[in-house]
């Protein structure tokens, strides 16, 4: 079955000052899949993610989201693309002066014409979906890290975007919270058909959620492996890839 390409990256170069981090990489993300971008620390995972969501502008290359090249399109087109995506940041990035419900309500108020009381109900449903029912009036500083992550997820999917981006979703979470978040990711993907692009190096999460992984490497400055994580672990021809997925130390 030919799958529908939702994000296409073509010959993307990512640079930090004069130092090239990713050299002409290309890949596709298909609609409805959970793609995990893995690699060692410093291989450019987060940089790549920031290119995908338009926070960084590449010196050359293209990033097409549903056919729109976000590296060259104008402000109006870019705003339209932004409506289709949601991002869960590593540090949650909830607005600290607002309560959880205000944080989640923000995009709904801005981009829909729902009446006030309906927005209230909607926000509660969103928070209940991420198991935060009853915490509407808490400030981000009053809840734990795992709860912040879940609240940030509720905000990221406030408008049911077609693509969700996750930057290290399990960073700083205990195994249970992390597994809970993984379950949430799978549930949302299955029920709403949301495409997910996840940057992580948490092996448990990778094996639990990934449909497909892309592995980046700092020395190759690009993609060194692509495919199903279980297959890569057992059958990859690259010993480094096998070591990564088997959690063994590399000996160079």
């Amino acid at each position, binding site marked *: 079955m030919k799958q529908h390409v939702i994000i296409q990256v073509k010959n993307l170069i990512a640079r930090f000052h004069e130092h090239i981090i990713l050299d002409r990489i290309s890949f596709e993300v298909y609609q409805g899949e959970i793609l995990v971008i893995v690699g060692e620390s410093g291989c450019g995972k987060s940089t790549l993610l920031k290119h995908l969501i338009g926070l960084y502008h590449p010196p050359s290359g293209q990033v097409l989201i549903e056919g729109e090249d976000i590296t060259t399109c104008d402000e109006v087109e870019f705003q339209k693309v932004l409506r289709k995506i949601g991002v869960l940041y590593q540090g949650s990035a909830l*607005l*600290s*002066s607002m309560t959880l419900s205000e944080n989640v309500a923000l995009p709904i108020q801005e981009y*829909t*014409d*729902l*009446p006030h009381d*309906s927005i209230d*109900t*909607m926000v*509660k*449903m*969103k*928070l*209940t*979906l991420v198991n935060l*029912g*009853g915490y*509407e*009036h808490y*400030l*981000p*500083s009053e809840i734990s890290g795992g709860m912040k992550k879940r609240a940030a997820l509720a905000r990221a999917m406030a*408008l*049911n975007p077609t693509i969700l981006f996750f930057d290290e979703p399990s960073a700083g979470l205990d195994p249970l919270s992390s597994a809970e978040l993984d379950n949430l990711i799978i*549930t949302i993907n299955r*029920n*709403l058909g949301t495409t997910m692009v996840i940057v992580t190096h948490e092996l448990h999460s990778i094996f639990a959620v990934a449909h497909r992984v892309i592995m980046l490497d700092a020395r190759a400055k690009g993609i060194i492996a692509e495919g199903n994580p279980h297959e890569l672990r057992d059958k990859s021809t690259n010993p480094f890839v096998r070591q990564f997925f088997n959690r063994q130390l590399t000996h160079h």
Partner: protein
Amino acid sequence: MRTSKTVPSYHCVVSKGEGERITLHVEGRMDVTTAAPMISELRLLLKNSPPLSLTVDLERVTYLDDFGVLVLVELKQILSRGNGNFYLTNAQGKVREILDLLKFPTLPESVATIRKVPSTIFVRLGEGTIGVISDMKYLISFLGAVCLALFFILFHPKSLRGEDTLSAMQRTGVDALPIVGLISFLLGLIMAFMSSVQLKQFGTNILVASLVALAMVRELGPIMTAIIVAGRSGSAFAAEIGTMKISEEVDALFTMGFDPTRFLVVPKIIATMIVVPLLTLFSNMFAISGGLIVGVLMLDLTANAYLAQTLHTLTLSDLLWGFFKSGVFAFLIAWIGCLRGFQVRGGASSVGHATTSAVVSGIFLIILSDAIFAVILQYWG
């Protein structure tokens, strides 16, 4: 009766059954874009005569997400307000899954929140009082900690962080010189100009020099400089320490065995206490040169006569008194700036609050202490 309406990608058909029983056939997508028009349309439809029962037929719904569920929740609420019954039929496949995921039968009761009880005036008064008392306690204990740290440094000068002190001196002093100079120069200019209008009438132009010199050296020089430093550096201290506080850097210092007061506050206080008197000296000189320009260009005074009159008016004790005051102001600015920084709790808005508070309380303390000094000088001098 049949009503129908086509809005982008959905279609609602209402067929009235027997009596007050209504069936609603929904077609198309029930999602984030169609929820708002659907809700307003259905509210209008059901506003006047809430039916005894409403059945929503979901057979032809092609897509349902939680915004679509919100529409159903709305209908359910309207019905329950009029004591009517609400039914869903033909929910299949994905639609069924979404309804199960969100536990539709228990909605909206299951998302009802525990409302925060609005506090009474007595509770708020009590909270306010406790807040003020604990603020005062912290203020005093912080003053104590700063004094202890300063004494410690006095006996162990080597433990002072020299680099930090120097860079704080540069940021607080050297970088502030242009703006302090410009403002003082203009202040001298204005003072000389305004007073000359009056003094000219009595033929005592030369007294302009005395007025500018005395006013600046004893009062305005120290105060203006202190206010500028409070705005520039007091706020910066609060923002810096406040940000360190939320990113747990202060906690890290503490667990590494550093005393945060000694590490962060002492260099800033010492640096400020060194540079503010120097800035005051510059401020005085710039103001006098401002007055000199008015004197020479508008009052037909010679530069020599103006400067001689200035020197004749000023005594060493005036100058030292001004320096002493600016030293005290410097301590207060740095102390309150750091204090507000350490009081930061929570997030970004708290840092903003601390910064504002550092400047406002800094300026208040400057004026208050200046008033106290004025009284002391009255009885003592």
